[in-house]
């Protein structure tokens, strides 16, 4: 590549080029395995069913340990899933995101924690809450 023409207010300046790039074309043999190539397993394919609606959320605290959620775990949350009885959900309660289990008893709804220290939340018509999303997988890293 030689110098560039730079156009500036109608006049042309020649510039010396200082960047040298060279590439070598690689040629190789066709591998006999090429006919049997498959895509390697992709973890995302397994855990993300609806990319547009899937978010990752970090868990804080151990109050949902019996359900397999530890402090610092990453939760896979799918907002497109309709929350059902027994699902672990991210709920915004009084505008704070919390992790709880949704329980339906007849027409009544509860949000319960694994830790008895935390009272069940009974959903009333005036409760300030919304289901943010349903937890579909937990990513837990073991200490090595």
């Amino acid at each position, binding site marked *: 590549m030689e110098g560039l*023409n730079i*156009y500036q207010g109608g006049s042309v300046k020649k510039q010396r080029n200082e960047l040298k790039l060279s*590439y070598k074309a690689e040629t190789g043999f066709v591998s006999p395995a090429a006919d049997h190539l498959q895509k390697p397993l992709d973890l995302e394919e397994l855990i993300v069913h609806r990319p547009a609606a899937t*978010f990752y959320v*970090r868990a*804080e605290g151990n109050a949902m340990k019996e359900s397999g959620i530890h402090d610092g775990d990453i939760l896979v949350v799918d*907002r497109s899933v309709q929350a059902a009885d027994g699902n672990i959900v991210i709920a915004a309660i009084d505008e704070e995101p*919390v992790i709880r289990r949704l329980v339906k008893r007849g027409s009544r709804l509860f949000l319960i924690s694994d830790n008895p220290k*935390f009272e069940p939340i009974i959903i009333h018509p005036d409760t300030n809450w919304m289901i943010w999303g349903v937890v579909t997988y937990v990513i837990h890293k073991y200490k090595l």
Partner: protein
Amino acid sequence: MILKLDSFNNRSSIAYAMIDCNNFYASCERVFNPSLENKPIVILSNNDGCVIARSEEAKQLGIPMGAPEFKYRNFFKKTGVIVRSSNYPLYGDMSRRVMEALRDLTHDIEVYSIDEAFAEVSTNTHPDLEEYGRIIKETVFKWTGLPVSVGIAPSKTLAKIANETAKRNPAYKGVLNLCENPGTDHILKKMPLQKIWGIGHNLTIRLNRFDIKTAHDLKQKINHKRWVRKHLNVTGLRTVLELNGFPCIKLSEALDSRKGILTSRMFGKPLFDLTEIEEAVSTYVSRAAEKLRAQHSLASNIQVMLIGDKFKNPKSKYKYGAYTSFKVPTAHTPTLINAGKQITRSVHLPETKYKKAAIMLTGLVPNSEVQMDLFDPELYTRQQYTLMECIDQINTRHGRNTAAFAATGLHRKNEEEASWKMNQNFLSKRYTTEWEDIMIAKAK
């Protein structure tokens, strides 16, 4: 062309929906921070200069678009306005999710901007279009947490009017269908000309002279063929037809074929030093090149403008730029950076304070249209193309700037060190693009 007055003889199973996100930037901030619900929010421009987006509550407080942050600082404090720097990685990702959801829900979409799309909807699958609009609205909200408004009509021009009306008037609850809606004319009578899609300022003035003030006035002109031919160009005629429910503007086959890519930023502080300015320019060129490759295009020209302070530099040399053309269009970052740096050197004046740089890539052509010549080193070769693809993949997978070009100032490890980096003092987290930034929920 025979124009019929009664457009509803023109029954078709296809209608157009215009979907747009309500106060998009502010809504994105709320999804991951529910405590911002119902609070006034403003989003600032790059470098925290002025207000570029407002939540409904902030609009109610009378904060204008473009309000300078420093002038309103005390007002924001007093009234409890939440201030945010623009978080484009977050907005870009949320936009992608909305468009993906719309693709799932409709026949075909055309992304119109970061927060708007046209969609083709069909009565064959959803006989009740208003109901369909509600499904779209509720599904997008459920999946992404973003509120949208939906306008449906026989043509794109009317769909935009329906959307605008649904957004302004709470009675519609965010969805309005104008297909075979007897109230359409009533709405068009209240719609000023300049609000119509494709009617520019000049045409508005010209039409006003003929006492055409509203969308309804213009719609009536379908009965005055001679007048239309005399006073309107093809675009104007199309608008008249569209207002009458005859669709003339189909969904674009692809994303709008943008004429150019512009990256322009304020430096964090004014710069004298040529090396620092070159680094900033190289960084902006890199970004522009990424955008270029993402839309599978090549650029024929690159333009660099260095903008100084016209008040401190009264010689009016405050806007200074130059461009160069490539023999063959390219998307090769080193080639582009090299050209960008050379232009920078040629326009840079010593003893001048620069506060901003702008890079423009123009003469865009689709990748497929360029013959790659493997024997001429001057050309954008296959190897260069493959290298660029690799780098983009690494950066997509492992975070921006994992693989970057030395010219962008890599040796300054600390972002703070680089004086041209933007001020972003009110930045929320990058909830969807950085692992360190994902939302936290408490188990309790």
